[in-house]
């Protein structure tokens, strides 16, 4: 795929309007073809920050009824509402768009005592998305949400009135799909729990990544290769409890020839990593930005076959496919922009989660 990606995080946790990320991604419209655009915002629902927020797209009312009765079974619905939108001429054939703030019911927690709340949420998301009932959960994290659809990202941003939201971290994607159809659920970002990703590339290892994830109970339903990246992060970070840096080295491991040259301890570490997690290697050209709400993590494939630039300005950290996107929203000085090397991630991190929480309470 062509595609452009962008991300902005305020490392101090200051929240800012979605307008900025819309401007950034719109600048790279030449990389997209209008078949998909979308955004993820973190810190946008401070009033409901302890509840899981589901953004769901429905094909029709019947799908909504069925899904809502299913949700009611497992969750206490604290609030439900249509996702606010405005009329944009170019956005057509819109599905029904709803959001729900949910708490896992106590009796469900008891019933699935071996599972964490996150596991229960993941199970529900997988169930709804795999049921082919015309409902797709497109985001399911806390204090975050994904807004996406078929259209150029600039129009999608307008459609969802993102300028009215403020968050401390934003990801964006403008799509040029080649292998898979352009449909509302297939636009980026992809999200599960607090994870969201945007991806520019094509995953030539998709077949095995998918089968590997299925062994761990993930159901891949979105007809797009990028989905595997999201679930791999969920598996490695949440279930296997590995730090982001290690997960990155699993998805994009060093070459065997590089491992051979390492000192013994690292050599053993990376050898073990590759031997155990070979099926999680992401092969093929990729530039990826992932966020878990605490950091924004950008990286490319092992050969760097897709572009990614980064810049820092004050407490803000930027990632984008092209420099122009960053320049559009931030006055850059010489040296502000840097190009992450092959195998090196570019990371913007909340200085402390506490700060972010504090800022939001204000």
């Amino acid at each position, binding site marked *: 795929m062509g595609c452009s990606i962008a991300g902005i995080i305020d490392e101090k946790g200051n929240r800012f309007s979605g307008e900025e990320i819309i401007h950034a991604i719109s600048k790279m419209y030449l990389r997209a073809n209008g078949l998909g655009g979308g955004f993820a915002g973190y810190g946008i629902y401070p009033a409901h920050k302890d509840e899981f927020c589901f953004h769901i797209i429905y094909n029709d009312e019947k799908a909504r009824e069925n899904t809502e009765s299913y949700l009611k079974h497992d969750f206490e619905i604290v609030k439900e509402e249509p996702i606010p939108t405005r009329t944009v001429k170019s956005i057509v054939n819109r599905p029904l768009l709803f959001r729900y703030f949910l708490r896992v019911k106590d009796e469900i927690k008891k019933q699935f005592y071996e599972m964490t709340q996150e596991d229960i949420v993941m199970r529900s998301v997988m169930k709804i998305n795999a049921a082919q009932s015309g409902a797709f959960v497109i985001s399911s994290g806390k204090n975050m949400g994904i807004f996406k659809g078929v259209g150029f990202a600039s129009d999608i941003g307008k459609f969802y009135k993102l300028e009215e939201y403020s968050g401390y971290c934003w990801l964006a994607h403008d799509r040029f799909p080649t*292998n898979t159809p352009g449909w509302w659920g297939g636009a980026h970002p992809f999200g599960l729990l607090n994870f969201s990703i945007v991806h520019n590339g094509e995953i030539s290892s998709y077949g095995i990544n998918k*089968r590997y994830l299925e062994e761990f109970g993930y159901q891949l339903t979105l007809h797009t290769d990028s989905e595997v990246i999201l679930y791999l992060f969920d598996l490695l970070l949440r279930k296997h409890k590995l730090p982001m840096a290690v997960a990155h080295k699993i998805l994009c491991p060093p070459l065997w020839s590089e491992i051979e040259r390492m000192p013994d301890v690292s050599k053993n570490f990376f050898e073990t990593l590759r031997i*155990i997690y070979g*099926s999680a*290697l992401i*092969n093929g*050209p990729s530039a990826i930005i992932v966020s878990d709400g605490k950091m924004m993590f950008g990286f490319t494939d092992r*050969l760097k076959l897709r572009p990614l630039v980064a810049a820092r300005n004050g407490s803000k950290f930027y990632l984008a496919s092209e420099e122009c996107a960053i320049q559009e929203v931030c006055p850059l000085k010489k040296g502000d922009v840097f190009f992450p090397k092959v195998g090196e991630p570019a990371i913007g991190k909340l200085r402390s989660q506490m700060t972010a929480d504090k800022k939001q309470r204000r």
Partner: protein
Amino acid sequence: MTADLSAAIVVVIGGNQRMYMKKSLLFPDFTVTRDPDKCIQCEVCVRQCAFEAHSFDKAANKIETDNSKCVGCLRCATMCPTGALTVSEYQQNIKKNKNWTEKQLKELYKQAETGGILLTGMGTDKDYKIIWDHILLDAAQVTNPSIDPLREPMELRTYLGSKPDRIKLQITNYKLQTKLPPQLKLETPILFSAMSYGAISLNTMRALARAADECGIFYNTGEGGLPKELYKYGKNTIVQVASGRFGVDSDYLDVASAVEIKVGQGAKPGIGGHLPGEKVTEEISRIRMIPTGTDALSPAPHHDIYSIEDLSQLIYSLKEATCYKKPISVKVAAVHNIAAIASGIVRAGADIVAIDGLRGGTGAAPTRIRDNVGIPIELAISAVDSRLREEGIRNRASIIAAGGFRNSADVVKAIALGADAVYIGTAALVAMGCHLCQKCYTGKCNWGIATQDPYLVKRLNPEIAARRLVNLIKAWSHEIKEMMGGMGINAVESLRGNRLRLRGFDLHENELKILDIKPAGESL
């Protein structure tokens, strides 16, 4: 059974015993034509043919050829200094019949004359559909750049053995807590299949061992024990423990890198091994620990394995004996219920499951068994890999596929279906000079490969044979890299089990379903 088998051998060897019958109704398989203008009567052909198809008639001062003795190994034609010999199909016009073919008739005549079961060598030559030839590979175009293996790194390194499901790190300092079970490290996902000392010559074994060493891969001793002089290749050796337990002692287990329990073989599922007494020389007798000249018969089952829990005991006995430092492999033939069998093997504790398909080779097998028992390896790989994944135990063992791998494309397809690596036997023998005459069981291999006759054994120079094997492995590895690069994949782990990069062409719906691949023309 022994008597029957030797009777069958007698027929094929020919010789005096056929005098029992008044006149054999068998007619030859081949015609050897000698160009009198080119023949210089040097008698190379006479000396080269262990089947004595050529002889020098002193009285007539002329070289005679007995077509009925020719096995079609082409040794004489290859070695003839003037190129005077041509071996061709025997041109006797039996009335054409699609049902009662010439082959069927000949086999009937043979059995009528001997009363024996038919013996043969190598993998089946029956005209079964070759599924590999109905599977097509993908390549990257436009949206995903293909990778040029001459310019970019391309990784084939493969580790065989049990892997934990996840890694564990110390929370404080991220230090590695996981200790990997023993692994075999392969520089390319190919191993030399089990061929026993006895079935093949010492020189052949030397060549395999040297080539494995040079290529960073493994060869497999088969069930015939391991000559001491090859102990130095231990780090590239997989030793076999079969139902006959030939040559198994503590040194044998100690020196190897992995131990393979041989339960079955693709060429003869359900029956044991049979090394004819003709091949049991003094050296073989010493290594196998059996008397010289006796048939070495390994029982059909392991008599200490009558069910899965017994297999588990043997696996763990071998793990104990090797201090849990070596992966234990279990080799089985691909039979109808292979997926469940493989799952049982993994749960019994095996680190590697080796599966040998319908086309697996052999030094000696009853023809009917070889040609009719088992299932194609393509289907077996897919069924096993799918089953192990469904059960969430795929990480616990590696899969080696075996049985008729002809070229590097077969290897790529096998890996994409889900194998970790493949065993090659026949392809390796051909690289060393085998011409697939299928007469390994006679002990008269004119190419010096499947023989113990000292006069024949020295025909195979282990240095040259090793070089040819290394060339083969290198060539295939280059080709595998080219195909992977074409798909935009630069590490073999991204090919393994990646069935989306395969398409079936001219396959039945059921075959596609079992292979779990889409038909050609269908996209992602």
